[in-house]
């Protein structure tokens, strides 16, 4: 069923009895051309673009729990393309352009809101660095604008610009950035993929890979063996866990990142503000809750929950620039497992085993990348060559020294 205003009126007049499930719940077939492991945003987007853009048939998405229950349901919903390096910026700008047309493309309301993102600066050196970043963005076809403190205060009059340690001296704005209803992204891609014949198989955990003559020919799952022409892995924080089943070590560590929502408030935050120096960023959801987050807890974790010192640290960061928010009560908080790579940038590549492809290492930037990640991974799976915007995301860059390290932190995943 195609969703439209007409359908809403028609269903309203007929008692809403005509709505059908947004996707089927099929049993696995014995063999597929392409099996995607991971029914999160990236896996579902991959299946969607494989079917829609690359004309592939007989595709399955295997999810160990329910779709959209991992990081696509655990993030802070921000989209942006404000990267500096050549390996990254074209990819993230491609992603932002896909976001801009996504709702029409997959006929689902993902509540994409280009309310703008603002990165605060506190010193002359940081201003120079952000002007450079803004120029790199513009060179790659993105938008960027340096704002003065006065321009920022006009938008955020309650912002504390006179903090003793980090006075606000301006900011880098990307007006096309914004927020998205994150669950709707998973649901929209799932519905779009399902309607094009993709089997989305939930409660189906991959327990092993089957190889013949050095080639992956299928996967063992909790719902039986499933043969596959090609297997693509897109399981984010569980990447090392999955790939260890085929004895592959990855250049990454899994870390927990916490996020927080306050009680609902009247509209107060018109856009997204990031306070990098104090490790705090914030936006307001359409329901009114302040959605905010900060740093990783900093140690390897698969627990999907964090500890209290980081809660305190994030809230202190928030109080430093938004003292008024101290009156808001914290409603809930949660943790997601980040696939933190060794240079802070992702991998979309073949593995050394034929028929096995990998997508991961998204660190805490995976949500905004969802459309381009799916598109580029689908491109790689369908054509066996990387998409032009994702040519740098190779496994071997750590061996050849072609790291994509936006922050210059080196091989310390908890610092990216």
């Amino acid at each position, binding site marked *: 069923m195609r969703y439209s205003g007409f359908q809403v009126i028609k269903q309203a007049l007929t008692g809403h009895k005509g709505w059908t499930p947004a996707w089927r719940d099929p049993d696995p077939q014995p063999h597929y051309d392409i099996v995607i492991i991971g029914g999160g945003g990236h896996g579902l987007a991959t299946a969607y673009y494989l079917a829609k853009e690359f004309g592939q048939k007989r595709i399955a998405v295997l999810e160990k729990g329910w779709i959209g229950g991992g990081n696509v349901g655990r993030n802070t919903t921000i989209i942006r393309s404000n990267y500096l390096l050549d390996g990254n910026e074209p990819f993230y700008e491609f992603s932002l352009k896909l976001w801009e047309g996504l709702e029409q493309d997959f006929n689902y309301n993902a509540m994409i809101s280009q309310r703008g993102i603002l990165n605060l600066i506190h010193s002359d050196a940081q201003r120079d660095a952000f002007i450079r970043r803004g120029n790199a963005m513009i060179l790659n076809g993105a938008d960027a604008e340096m704002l003065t403190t006065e321009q920022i205060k006009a938008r955020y009059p309650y912002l504390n610009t006179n903090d003793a340690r980090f006075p606000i001296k301006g900011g880098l704005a990307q007006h096309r950035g914004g927020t998205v209803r994150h669950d709707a992204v998973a649901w929209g891609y799932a519905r779009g993929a399902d309607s094009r014949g993709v089997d989305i198989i939930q409660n189906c955990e991959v327990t092993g890979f089957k190889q013949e003559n050095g080639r992956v020919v299928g996967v063992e799952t909790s719902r039986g063996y499933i043969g596959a022409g090609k297997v693509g892995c897109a399981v984010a924080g*569980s990447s*090392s*866990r999955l790939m*260890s089943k085929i004895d592959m*070590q*990855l*250049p*990454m*560590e*899994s870390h927990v990142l916490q996020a927080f929502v306050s009680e609902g408030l009247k509209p107060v935050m018109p856009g997204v503000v990031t306070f990098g120096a104090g490790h705090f960023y914030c936006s307001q959801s359409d329901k009114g809750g302040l959605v905010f987050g900060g740093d990783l807890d*900093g*140690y*390897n*974790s*698969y*627990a999907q929950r964090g*500890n209290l*010192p980081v809660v305190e640290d994030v809230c202190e960061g928030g109080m430093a620039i938004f003292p008024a928010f101290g009156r808001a009560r914290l409603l809930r908080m949660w943790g997601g497992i980040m696939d933190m790579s*060794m240079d802070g940038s992702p991998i979309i590549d073949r593995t050394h085993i034929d028929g096995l492809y990998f997508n991961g290492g998204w660190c805490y930037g995976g949500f905004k990348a969802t459309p381009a990640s799916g598109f580029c991974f689908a491109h790689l799976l369908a054509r066996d060559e990387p998409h032009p915007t994702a040519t740098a995301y190779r496994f071997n860059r*750590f*061996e050849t020294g072609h790291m994509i390290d936006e922050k210059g932190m080196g*091989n*310390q*995943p*908890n610092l990216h």
Partner: protein
Amino acid sequence: MIINHPLLGPRDSAEFTYMGDAKLIDRPDWQSDTAARDFYEYGYLRDNPAGWHNELWFHEQGDRSWLVVTRNTVTHEISKVELARDVARARGRSK
């Protein structure tokens, strides 16, 4: 998390800085024929297990000793804490 420091007793993990997998104690031989490959694996590849993990913690806000902590990455339970110095010496390092 509380880390039971072998010398100082129970300490808040917030006093520590996290380094990562304790295999970083075993630095490869730079004169080996396979040194380039060995250092790539040492520098960049990790087991990253879900479960028990030996890892290096630095007591930065305390006595500045390096510890090897055996911790479960699923439950955050800590089963063993040793001085990294003792672990390295037991493996024949820094005699």
